[in-house]
């Protein structure tokens, strides 16, 4: 009965979240409406801006280049420079600096003499569009949304359903037990009322179950053997777990979310872990790799709708993530204010999640580049992990199973041509497993 009621609730939640979602979509569009009467198309302008300018410019803050919000009006008001000048500058700033343009040289010196890339390919219309975008007021901070979006909502509600079902079951069982007790009591009362002596009634009916069991030696023997075996089985299983850190999920000095990077933003694993392609080590990316993006991504805006309830419960607010980016800046010695490196670095001491013992040689490039195995095969759905944990047991048995089951990827690899032909003939198979190729020999991993 209760369940049915709850189903109604789900649809309610879904309904509300849909409304919220729609509201937000509208507000996003609303922000992109041009605020001033410029001729360009700010929507196109935003795309162009992100493609061409965002690496060095932000709307509101200094980066490699100056902030660009309302650049057109600011220039004409403060410096008396017109649109012509701006067009010329965008298309060939170096030329202008050379020709001794006063403001051009001033900016050039102010921004550490980093010349701006020339954009001769941008048409005047493109520039119009970009300027229209810059003229739009910078996006106001998004109100923290308290409601959940539809996707998360449904996931959450299914969790709630499970909990409720369990609770309901417990209640039902409790009621049943209560009823049984009550029935027993009532029957006893009937019996007493009818004058039946219960003890006497049972006295002649032989031994109780327990006593019978104790007296049956065979049964005792079999049971104890069974219990011992079961204990040994579980003890062995437990002891074999020693040293296996499956699920190990250490707290890292910087809260780096693989979910945001690899999941939400779909950054390829090997963009950061580039050495996995050529080296035995997948490598923890050096901080300069982080700075490739984080020079311009200085705050977390990954969820325009604001953090989900779940994130909030964990404290993963936008401010929290932005704070983690600040930790990166501190470690790498990045002076955000002046947009330059201070040279004062503090290398980050990450906690290693996957620890293979020294006695085994494992080569990432063999698996990643040669066999083209997905990282997720061993590391699990990293793109869904807010905190990375060890997914696989990393035991030898686990390695060997995979070597026995996985076919060697020989197509298009000249190295394998001869040996594959000969070996597949020998074993009478079309596809060789890693084990057949010699992947179970001790010396292949232990030296």
């Amino acid at each position, binding site marked *: 009965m209760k369940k049915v009621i709850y189903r109604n609730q789900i649809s309610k939640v879904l309904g509300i979240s849909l409304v919220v979602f729609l509201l937000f979509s509208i507000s996003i569009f609303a922000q992109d409406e041009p605020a001033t009467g410029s001729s360009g198309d700010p929507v196109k302008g935003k795309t162009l801006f992100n493609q061409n300018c965002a690496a060095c410019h932000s709307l509101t803050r200094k980066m490699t280049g100056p902030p660009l919000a309302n650049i057109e009006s600011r220039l004409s008001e403060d410096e008396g420079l017109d649109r012509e000048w701006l067009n010329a500058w965008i298309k060939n700033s170096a030329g202008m600096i050379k020709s001794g343009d006063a403001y051009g040289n001033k900016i050039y010196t102010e921004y550490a003499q980093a010349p701006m890339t020339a954009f001769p390919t941008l048409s005047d219309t493109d520039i119009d569009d970009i300027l229209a975008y810059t003229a739009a007021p910078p996006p106001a901070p998004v109100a923290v949304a308290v409601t959940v979006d539809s996707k998360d909502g449904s996931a959450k509600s299914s969790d709630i359903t499970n909990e409720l079902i369990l609770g309901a079951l417990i209640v039902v069982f409790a009621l049943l037990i209560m009823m049984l007790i009550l029935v027993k009591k009532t029957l006893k009362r009937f019996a007493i009322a009818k004058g039946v002596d219960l003890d006497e009634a049972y006295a002649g009916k032989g031994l109780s179950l327990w006593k019978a069991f104790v007296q049956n030696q065979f049964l005792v023997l079999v049971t104890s053997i069974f219990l011992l075996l079961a204990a040994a089985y579980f003890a062995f299983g437990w002891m074999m777990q020693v040293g296996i850190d499956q699920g190990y999920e250490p707290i890292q000095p910087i809260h780096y979310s693989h979910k945001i990077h690899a999941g939400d933003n779909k950054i390829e694993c090997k963009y950061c872990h580039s050495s996995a392609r050529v080296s035995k080590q997948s490598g*923890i990316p050096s901080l300069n790799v982080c700075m490739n993006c984080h020079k311009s991504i200085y705050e977390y805006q990954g969820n325009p709708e604001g953090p989900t309830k779940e994130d909030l419960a964990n404290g993963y607010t936008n401010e929290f993530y932005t704070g983690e980016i600040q930790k990166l800046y501190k470690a790498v010695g990045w002076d955000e204010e002046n947009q330059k490196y201070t040279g004062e670095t503090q290398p980050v*001491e990450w906690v290693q999640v996957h620890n293979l013992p020294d006695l085994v040689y494992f080569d990432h490039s063999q698996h990643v580049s040669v066999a083209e195995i997905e990282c997720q095969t061993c590391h699990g759905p990293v793109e869904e992990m807010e905190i990375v944990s060890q997914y696989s047991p990393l035991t030898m048995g686990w390695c060997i199973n995979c070597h026995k089951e996985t076919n060697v990827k020989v197509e298009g690899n000249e190295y394998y041509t001869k040996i594959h032909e000969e070996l597949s003939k020998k074993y009478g198979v079309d596809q060789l497993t890693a084990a057949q190729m010699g992947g179970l020999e001790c010396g292949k991993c232990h030296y």
Partner: protein
Amino acid sequence: MASNKKYWKNEAELNPNDSIVEALRQNEFVQEIPVDEFLGDKENLSATNTDRRDFLKYVGFSTAAAAMAACEGPVRRSIPYVVQPENIIPGVANYYATTIANGFDFASILVKTREGRPIKVENNTDAKLKGGANARVQSSVLSLYDSTRLQGPLKDGEPVEWNSIDADVKAKLNSLNTAGKQIALLTQTYASPSTAKLIAEFKEMYGTVNHVTYDAISEDAALSAFEARYGERALADYNFEEANIIVSFGADILVDWQGGGYDSGYSKGRVPKNGKMSKHVQFEANMSLTGANADKRIPLTPMQQKVALAQLYAKLNGASTSGEIPEYAQRAIESITQEIGKNKSAAVVVTGLQDVNAQAVVLAINEMLGSKAFDAKAPKYVRQGNVKNVNALIADMKAGNVGALIMDGVNPMFTLPNATDFAEGIEKVDLSVTFSTNWTETTEMTNYTVASNHFLESWGDTQIKKGHYGLIQPTIKELFDTRQLQSALLQWMGSDKSYYDYIKETWSTDVLGEGDWNQALHDGVFTAGSNVVEELVETVAAVVEVEEETISTIDVSSAVRNLASATSGGGMELRLYSKVGMGDGQQAGNPWLQEFPDPISRVSWDNYVTVSKVDAENLGLINENVANGGLDGSYTNLTVNGITIENVPVLIQPGQAPGSVGMALGYGRQVGMKSEMQTGVNAYPLYQGYNNVQSVTLEKSAGTHEFACMQLHNTLMGRGDIIKETTLEIFNTKDHSEWNKVPMVSLNHQEVPATTVDLWDSFDRSIGHHFNMSIDLNACTGCGVCVIACGAENNVPVVGKEEVRRSRDMHWLRIDRYYSSEDTFEEDNVKKDEFDGLSGDKGSLGGFGEMEDPATNPQVAFQPIMCQHCNHAPCETVCPVAATSHGRQGQNQMAYNRCVGTRYCANNCPYKVRRFNWFLYNNNDEFNYHMNNDLGKMVLNPDVNVRSRGVIEKCSMCIQKTQKTILDAKRDGRSIIDGEFQTACSMACSNGAIIFGDVNDGNSKIAELKESDRMYHLLESVGTKPNVFYHVKVRNNNEA
């Protein structure tokens, strides 16, 4: 019958009134056990709530807790780069070409670095100049991580700032310059165009600079003779590959003779090709590595060698000279004369006698023959030391004429024969500065000690041979606060240039010509075009020349007369030499080199005086093996010119010329060394007048010395199937079944070849790679570079002298050295075959006893032995835990984590190549070498496991290298080219004695070598089917 005898243990027992005896009779202990401390306080004890049961609970709980805690893995941290250098990828090795030029060793090398730290030295195969990295060069990477290195500049032994040194030195130099007092620069040989130029500029700035070059082990005689004949202070170059006949008078051409680097050319000529190989005749006193490789070795004392050389010269000119030499030597000289006469330009004569006359005669002979192997046009600059200048400097110092003394790369207080004079002189010097990597005997005496760079942290350049340039580039940033001499000189000259810029400038103006700097830096070597060379040499030579001198020519005929009349000064003749593993001793703190066994004596961690058996008997000196297998020897006192060094251990050396003794320089360093490394006796005080031949008296002294000798059995005992040997004549004329016999075994009462019998079923090994290794006993000189390379690649631990003495050395690769009991191995074989019955003249009982004694001038053979990777491996079948197993690629694999240390496998191995880790050699201060400190551990190869206590280890055929080659090919999607598969030993062997490869690749070199007539397997009769094979040694005994 009951006895009423009274037994007593102690005199006191006889006294019945003794209280102690009475007490002991009643109690076990004389005194009460002092339990009062914790049980005396009754009040406290009764008041406590902790009873016995609680105590047991606590014990139980804490034990359980400790056990549980052990189940938790440790938290491991991992720190990536902040800014990763572009060309460093963790896990991938980078190679840099550089050059070693430490004043003793000069070689073009490649340095392997991992994560920015150098871990291995390889040969630079791009270098046109022959001469690979020897054992010392291979080991030099460990000296970089020496924990006793100086970590910053010092003044009178106390740390000081650079500023203060710079200011003090500059002020002093300026005042000396104005005062006109001498500023002396005492340095090693650099052979460096840039350094020469820099010192010339330094001289220009401070006018009174006197640059003196000093070699610890001098080649002054050879330099002077060359200078007298050709007008340039340099050394003639030799290419022994070109020679059909090589005659050497005491020249150790395979070790350090005239700067070394001649062994690879020598070896190439020693492998029979088209029925031809070179013939090598050696006249020498000590049994040297060179003599051991010679076809004919004639033991002569140095004095006799001089006479023999004079006679050879005379005979070649059809004349005769005076002088007496033994009859056998006389005969040898005659036959050599004939052979040289036949070969003319394909003959070469060399000498290692430190005698200008001898050197001049040799130059004259080679020139007369027009020897192809002899090159005086493009000489070598690897030794520049000038004895006269050094002596003059010491005299000046003693006279108080020297104001400042700046030293670099030298340790005169240790290496000078007259170190006391030097010490006296240095007291009178106002300012003394030593550039040194370590605290030494010399730094102790000087005002300022400048912690200097290791060569792997330095910039530099070399000109090893005229026109052959090399660059030295740093492979790691300075580990400590150090500075190299050249940078300091630039600083003191007020220049703000770095030495790197200085070299670049010098090269672009003087060296490169049309060449490209980046290319030269990448290659590490640069060979100038011929016309460029001429000009260059002039400019450089002008700079190198210290003072203009009139060069007196040496009259050859008078030189010959002088030689012929050579007489010893009475007593015995001492020939001082340098060991292949120690050189001049500048790397004495290097544990790899200390543990490296001498190829001839197989003794590690020591030097000693080598004495012939006859002389030893006369002097009552003995060597004996004791019960634990160690070798013990007598001590002796050596006196040269009134200088005595005491208690030098004696080693009786087969082949030592009677009347002569030998002793290695370079040992006995004490100051600034770990106590473990303070081994041997310093022989430099005997190196009087920088002459390697001295007249010496020996006197037995008391006590016995304990050697750490790796090989106790010296002779081959006629077991011709271990080292197969034949002569060139037989090799050329007879079928290989005659001289490379396959052993026969009995099958069904019939003799059949051992190769046809098999106890096991063979696997099909024709698919995939099948690795084989070929070792050519003709090309192998026994130099041992492979031993060091193997240790460096595979993290082989150093175990120390005591453990080596117990035969617990860990070398995965050893080089067995065998002597013959008769004059030749062949005679051994004959003698053994002719044994008849147990006793009697030809009885085996006495006969075998005789065969254990090496001959007075034995034949010698070297045999590198590593795991033979048997296809039917006896070790694999006995391992109870299957820790050792066979791979399809032919490697016998060892899973250390599986090994439980029963050592059955080591017992069952017919080749005795398995090594047991008796102790934990890493992180253990009992083994204070390099694996117990963070610095020393940096040299470990991260691709190879560091083994723990209680497991067996052995050669893996560098499976980490073969696997890497395969993986690289897979990644590139290509098949593997022949020559790509290498092991550490095959890469290190520049002589080409060790070849490695895939025999299933039909076109490979190794497949060709396996089909060779000379191929044989070690102990073929055992049926182990090894994957390592050897090539029969061929000796060129052809007489003219």
